[in-house]
């Protein structure tokens, strides 16, 4: 296995006195899609939001252990630079109430452009990479809120791509979409992984099996803290799981 892009070491997260994640150590391989699955409430989303420190927005959250990006501790990084490198797409599409263009240009505008790059070119490149360009190229000034749900979600992906991240976190990106829009997103993921490392949370096991290269299975223990039960290549997890709890879960015996 190549050098991991991100890794967590003995990572724990607490809401006040409640331990929500229990000592998770896991590697995120580069240019692969890693899926995180598990029953609802097991801490999948919380774990995902640990990679770009979004949990810090919640008062009373405390963490122990380490999270590394390219070998560097993300807590020693500036949070703004971290989130620039580790982008995120949310469960429900959340475009800003601005035009399509302004949504994609938002990140580059705040971070500044690389020398010699034009904003228009970057917006076009990002929209193309998110497979949305052909549908919106004639009217980039239209409000983003007028797009369909699936288009909005691809716009949010384009918006994340425009800041040129290394890692993209996706929190059930298709759960609010219809099957056709979902399919489009899944196809998009396959092309994106050539250039990006993707971590995706999904409650849909078929989706995890279809799109991901690696799968992590999280489950809460007796004290309702999320634990990493098993992590490995997706094929192995879904065909020959080592842990009986994983087998129970993927065969639909609980959760």
């Amino acid at each position, binding site marked *: 296995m190549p050098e991991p892009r991100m890794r967590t070491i003995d990572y724990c997260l607490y809401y006040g006195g409640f331990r929500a994640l229990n000592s998770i150590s896991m590697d995120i391989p580069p240019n692969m899609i890693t899926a995180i699955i598990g029953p609802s409430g097991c801490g999948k989303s919380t774990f995902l939001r640990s990679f770009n420190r979004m949990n810090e927005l919640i008062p009373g959250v405390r963490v122990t252990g380490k999270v590394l990006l390219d070998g560097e501790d993300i807590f020693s990084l*500036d949070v*703004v*630079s971290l989130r620039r490198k580790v982008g995120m797409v949310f469960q429900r599409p959340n475009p800003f109430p601005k035009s399509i263009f302004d949504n994609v240009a938002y990140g580059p505008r705040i971070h*500044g*452009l*690389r*020398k010699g790059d034009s904003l228009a070119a970057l917006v076009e490149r990002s929209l193309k990479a998110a497979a949305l360009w052909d549908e919106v190229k004639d009217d980039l000034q239209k409000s983003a809120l007028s797009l369909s749900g699936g288009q909005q979600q691809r716009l949010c992906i384009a918006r994340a791509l425009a800041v040129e991240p290394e890692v993209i976190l996706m929190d059930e990106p298709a759960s609010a979409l219809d099957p056709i829009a979902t399919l489009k997103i899944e196809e998009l993921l396959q092309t994106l992984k050539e250039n990006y490392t993707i971590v995706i949370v999904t409650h849909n096991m078929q989706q995890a099996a279809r799109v991901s290269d690696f799968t992590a299975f999280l489950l809460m223990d007796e004290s309702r803290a999320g634990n990493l039960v098993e992590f490995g290549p997706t094929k192995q997890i879904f065909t020959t799981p080592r842990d009986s709890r994983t087998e129970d879960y993927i065969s639909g015996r609980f959760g």
Partner: protein
Amino acid sequence: MSSRSPAGRKLVQAGAFSLLWVSALLSVLVLASVVGYVMIKGIPELNLSFFTTPPRGGLSGEGGISSTIVATLYLVVMTLLVAAPLGIGAGVFLVEYAESMQNRLMKPLIRIARFGVETLAGVPSIIFGLFGYALFVTLMHFGFSLLSASLAGACLILPVVIRTTEEALKAVPQSYREGSLSLGATRWETIRRVVLPSAVPGITTGMILGVGRIISETAVFYVTLGGSYRTPTSILSSGRTMALHVFYLAMETRAFEKAMATGAVLIACIIAVNLAINAVSRRLTAGGGRW
């Protein structure tokens, strides 16, 4: 445009946030200086006889404020007697009945009623004074009196009472109404026995807000209540509320110490009103509503 350094952007943020801190602190400072100044100048003037003797007129504003306290109390009670039933009734109608009345006769009536409430809320108080003066003082020959003033005051607080009643009723869970109706209760029985009782704290808040408005209003009563500093003896008596007394002391007798003392009492009343509202809404929350 080259890549912006996170450090520089953090600096901009620090600068902007400190400006925001400053504006909030300044606002609190302004409040503290108004309240503090009036309190510091006013409280030393206070003693028991200030509360128990009436003003004696005169250029230095001798005497206390007893008759103005009495006038304020009378006015508050009379205003509420008029505004409470009307306002609560209107609020109940708009929330509980208006929705279901969609026929051609009622729909425009309800629209007009809503428009009336909204407009009333935006009318500046001196217009209520002008109206009260023309209708109650002059045309109906009530003269400058508690009656004229309380009728004008009722118009003034009506929108507050209606709105808070509406909000209190909207906060009552729909399941309560469904529960009662499914047991065969009529709509009125449901309102009287289920909806109104659970909306009491909210409606009370509206009443207290109205009381606060009456205590602090000056312009309306300046042109409807007259300015007699004697204790009112009937509803047709002229009078002076505490707020009006402050105005007369400052503008006519220039007795600023007494004005400050009366102002301090007014502020204390308003603080009491705010505390009462907080207490009621805390009960509202603790009572396990939908919040």
